[in-house]
C-alpha cells in the first residue's frame, strides 16, 4: 500500500513499482491486532535492498510472531525523494504506507559504510529525530545490525541499539523486552538499560569515551551497569535456525532476482583482509536435507526458476557434490537452474561444473586478490597460480570465454612488482585460453581484471594497517594499467576517493558523528553511487568539522592502541589477529580451519567446523 497522495507523483518517477508495495507474499496485518510495529529499513534502493538475504530472513521471522508486524522501507531514489519533499510526503513503509515516525522500531541493516548517509537521510525523510538523545519517548527506537555494526562508533549518536552478530535470536528478545517495558509504563532509558543486559546488545548511550591528546582513545567506559564487553550472538544449529519458506517476490526486477539458500555461515579460509571471514567464525553448515527442502519450498512459493546456493565460499561446503546431485534430482525436471556464487579458484571442478551447467553462461569470476604468490601468501589467500590456470583451462574447455579476476591494490607489504603481477597473471590466463584445445572456436577471450583499493577493516589481522591515500591509490592503478599489454584484458578499477572516504568510516570513532550529522543537514545521500558521491564535498565537510581524515585512513596504528571497536567480541582473540598480522609480514600462510585448527578462539562457541573432526572420529 502507498499513501493516497503518492499516486500522483508515481508517474513522474522512474520505476514507480518500487514505491507501491503490493508484492506477492508481502505480509499485511491489521495494526489493531499487533502490539509492536517494526520498520525494516534498507539504506539503499529497492532493487539492492530486496536482494538482501538477511532482510528476507528477519522479515519473515518477525512476521511469524503474531504480535509483531514488520514492514519494509527502502531509500527512495533521488527523483522520488525530490517529489516526496516537493509534495510533503514523509518516507513510508511499503506494507501499510504509514510514515516511519509511526513505528515502534526503525531497524537499519548496515552493509557498507557509504550507506550511512542514507540511514540518516531516511530518518529525516521519515520524520524521525536524528539524534538518539532527541527521541525521548518509548517509540521510534532506532536499531541497527549487519556487517558494519562491527564498528558502530561513527553513527553511535543516532542509533539506540546495535545488534552485534547474527540477529535471529537477539532481535526477538529485545522486542519482547520492549513489549514488557511498554506494558509497565517504563521510560525509554529504563528500557535501554535493561536491553543492554541482553547478550549481543550494544547501547551506545550507556558508554563514554575519553580521548588522548593525539586523538586516540584513552578509555571507553560503560555506565549504568552496561557490560564492558559486548559478545556477538551466533546461531549454532543451522538446521533448526529460522529460514523463510517464501520470499516477498518483487514485481519489478531487482539485482539478485532469484531464490537464495544459505548453505553455511562463516568461512574456513582466514584470508587476512576479509572481515566476514573473521567475524562469522566458526563455520556452521546446514545439512543437505535442510538445504534441499528449503530450495524446493522457495521455488514452489516464489516461482523463481533459479536458486543461488550462497555462502562466503560455496565450494567449501563439505559435501558440495552430493548436495548438487541431490538438488539435481528435481531441478532438472522442474527446469530450475542452480548457481554458486563465491566460487574459489580451487573449487571449480568438472564435477561441479557439469552440475551447474544449466546456468546461463554469462561469465566466471575468480578472486586471486593479489598478483604474486608472495603477496597471496602474505594475505593468506591460499591460491596458487597453477591452480588458477588449471581452473581457467577447465572453464575454457567447457566453453566459457569470459573470465573475471578480482584483485586488490594497497595490501600490506605490497610492492610495485606485486602490482605488475596483476597484469602478468591476466596475461597468463589469456595465454591459457589459446592453449586449450576444446576452447570455443571462432571466439576470442576476454579477461577482465578488476582492482579494488584495499580498505583495512575492524576484526581482521590488518585492522592496524595504513590505508593508501587518494594519490597513492591512483598511482598504483596506473602501475597496473601500464603493465597490461593486450587488448584481451579489460582493466577496471574502483574510484580512489570513494574508497578513501569509506575507509574513514570503516575504522572511525565517535568523533565522526558530528560529520555525519552535518552531512545529513547538507543533504548527502547515496554516497555509494557515483551519481551522488562527491569527494570534494566530503573533504570540505571534514575540514569544516576539524577532522583530519588521514587520522583514520593512512595512519598505521600500534598494536597496543585502544581501537574504537575493541569492546566488541566476535569470538576471535585480538592476540590471534596480531599473530596473523605478524605472519603476513613474513609472508607465512596459515592453514584453513579444516586442515588444522589455529586456535583463533571461535571454538568457544562449542560447535561448527571446530568440532567437525571430533565428530568424525566418533
Amino acid at each position: 500500500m502507498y499513501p493516497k497522495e503518492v499516486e500522483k507523483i508515481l508517474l513522474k518517477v522512474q520505476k514507480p513499482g518500487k514505491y507501491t508495495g503490493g508484492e506477492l507474499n508481502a505480509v499485511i496485518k491489521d495494526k489493531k491486532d499487533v502490539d509492536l510495529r517494526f520498520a525494516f529499513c534498507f539504506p539503499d534502493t529497492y532493487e539492492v535492498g530486496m536482494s538482501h538475504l538477511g532482510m528476507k530472513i528477519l522479515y519473515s521471522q518477525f512476521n511469524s510472531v503474531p504480535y509483531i508486524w514488520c514492514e519494509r522501507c527502502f531509500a527512495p531514489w533521488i527523483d522520488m525523494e525530490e517529489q516526496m519533499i516537493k509534495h510533503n510526503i514523509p518516507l513510508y513503509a511499503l506494507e501499510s504506507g504509514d510514515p516511519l515516525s509511526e513505528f515502534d522500531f526503525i531497524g537499519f541493516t548496515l552493509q557498507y559504510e557509504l550507506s550511512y548517509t542514507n540511514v540518516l537521510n531516511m530518518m529525516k525523510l521519515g520524520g524521525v529525530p536524528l539524534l538518539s538523545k532527541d527521541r525521548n519517548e518509548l517509540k521510534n527506537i532506532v536499531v541497527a545490525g549487519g556487517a558494519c555494526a562491527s564498528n558502530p562508533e561513527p553513527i553511535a549518536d543516532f542509533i539506540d541499539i546495535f545488534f552485534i552478530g547474527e540477529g535471529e535470536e537477539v532481535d526477538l528478545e529485545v522486542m519482547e523486552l520492549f513489549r514488557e517495558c511498554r506494558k509497565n509504563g517504563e521510560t525509554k532509558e529504563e528500557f535501554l538499560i535493561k536491553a543492554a543486559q541482553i547478550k549481543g546488545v550494544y547501547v551506545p548511550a550507556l558508554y563514554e569515551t575519553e580521548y588522548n591528546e593525539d586523538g586516540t582513545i584513552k578509555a571507553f567506559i560503560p555506565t549504568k551497569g552496561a557490560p564492558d564487553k559486548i559478545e556477538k550472538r551466533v546461531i549454532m544449529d543451522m538446521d533448526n535456525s529460522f529460514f523463510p519458506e517464501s520470499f516477498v517476490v518483487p514485481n519489478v526486477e531487482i539485482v539478485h532476482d532469484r531464490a537464495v539458500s544459505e548453505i553455511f555461515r562463516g568461512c574456513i579460509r582466514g584470508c587476512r583482509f576479509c572481515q566476514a571471514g573473521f567475524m562469522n567464525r566458526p563455520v556452521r553448515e546446514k545439512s543437505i536435507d535442510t538445504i534441499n527442502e528449503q530450495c524446493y519450498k522457495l521455488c514452489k512459493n516464489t516461482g523463481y526458476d533459479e536458486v543461488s546456493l550462497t555462502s562466503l565460499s560455496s565450494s567449501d561446503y563439505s559435501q558440495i557434490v552430493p548436495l548438487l546431485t541431490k538438488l539435481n534430482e528435481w531441478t532438472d525436471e522442474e527446469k530450475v537452474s542452480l548457481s554458486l556464487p563465491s566460487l574459489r579458484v580451487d573449487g571449480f571442478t568438472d564435477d561441479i561444473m557439469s552440475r551447474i551447467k544449466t546456468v546461463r553462461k554469462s561469465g566466471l569470476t575468480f578472486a586471486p586478490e593479489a598478483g604474486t604468490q608472495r603477496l597471496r601468501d602474505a594475505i593468506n589467500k591460499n591460491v596458487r597460480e597453477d591452480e588458477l590456470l588449471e581452473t581457467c583451462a577447465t572453464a575454457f574447455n567447457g566453453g566459457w570465454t569470459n573470465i573475471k579476476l578480482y584483485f586488490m591494490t594497497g595490501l600490506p607489504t605490497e610492492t610495485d612488482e606485486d602490482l605488475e603481477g596483476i597484469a602478468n597473471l591476466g596475461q597468463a590466463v589469456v595465454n591459457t585460453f589459446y592453449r586449450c584445445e576444446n576452447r570455443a572456436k571462432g571466439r576470442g577471450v576476454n579477461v577482465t581484471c578488476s582492482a579494488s583499493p584495499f580498505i583495512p577493516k575492524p576484526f581482521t589481522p590488518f585492522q592496524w594497517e595504513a590505508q593508501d591515500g587518494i594519490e597513492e591509490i591512483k598511482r598504483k592503478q596506473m602501475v597496473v594499467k601500464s603493465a597490461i599489454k593486450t587488448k584481451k584484458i579489460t582493466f577496471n578499477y574502483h574510484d580512489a576517493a570513494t574508497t578513501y572516504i569509506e575507509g574513514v568510516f570503516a575504522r572511525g570513532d565517535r568523533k565522526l558523528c558530528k560529520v555525519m550529522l552535518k552531512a545529513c543537514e547538507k543533504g548527502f545521500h547515496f554516497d555509494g553511487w557515483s551519481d551522488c558521491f562527491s569527494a570534494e564535498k566530503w573533504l570540505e565537510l571534514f575540514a569544516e568539522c576539524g577532522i583530519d581524515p588521514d587520522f583514520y585512513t593512512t595512519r598505521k596504528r600500534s598494536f597496543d592502541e585502544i581501537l574504537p571497536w575493541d569492546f566488541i567480541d566476535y569470538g576471535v582473540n585480538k592476540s590471534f589477529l596480531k599473530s596473523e598480522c605478524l605472519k603476513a609480514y613474513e609472508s607465512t600462510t596459515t592453514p584453513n580451519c579444516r586442515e588444522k585448527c589455529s586456535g583463533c578462539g571461535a571454538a568457544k562457541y562449542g560447535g561448527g567446523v571446530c568440532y567437525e573432526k571430533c565428530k568424525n572420529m566418533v
Partner: protein
Amino acid sequence: MKNVRIWFKKDKECRFISHLDLNRVMLRTVYRAKLPIWYTEGFNPHPFITFPLPLSLGFRGEAECMDVRFLDENFDLSTVADIMNPFLPEGIRVYGATESKMKPGDIAFAKFSARLYSDTLSARELKTELCELMLLDECLVPKKTKSGIKDIDVSQYIKLIEIIPDTDDLEITVTLPAGSANNVNIQLLFTAFENYLKSDVYYEITRHGVFDKEMCPFE
C-alpha cells in the same frame, strides 16, 4: 497444441508495473502454477508467453490478455483463473481463458476512460477548458519516436473525447486507434491538454478493452 488467450485485470499497486516487469511476473506465475504450457526450446527454456497489446505503465487494465500455447489440448480452460490467481500479486487477477480466435494484428482500437484533476483548477474549470481545446483545428504535441522528437497533431483524436456528465472530477471516455500499425497513446492527448493549460494535470487512465477494425471485441 492449442493457442490460448488468458484474460486478466491489472489494477491497484500493479498498475505501476512496467510491461517488461509484467512479463516477468507472468513467467514466474505460469511456471509456479505448473500450467501445461509450451516452453521455448533454446538454451534457456522458458514458458512461451506473448502480449497482444502491451499496457502502458500506470494504466489500469480491465480486459488485458496474454497468449500462451497449451500442450494439453483437452485442458479445462475454465480452471485457469483459479490455478493462477493464488500465485499472482493482489493487483493482477486472471478472470478467464479462451481459445484465441483473432490474431494480435487484428487489433485496431482501444477504449479508455480517464479521471483528470489538477492542483489549481476545479473540475468544472477543467471541463470548460477541455471543451475549448476540443474546438481547436490544430494541436501539436512532441512525441518521442525512433528518429527523435517530432511534433504531431492530435486535434482529430481530442475531438473524439466524450465528457461524462454529472461527475465530481472530470471524467472522460475515448476510443483511439491501437495496435501495431497505428497506435495513439492517450497520454499524448493529456500532454496536449497540459500544454494548453500551461499547468500540471494528474490523470488516472483505465483501458477497458481492445477491438478489431469492425469494433468487435478482441477475442
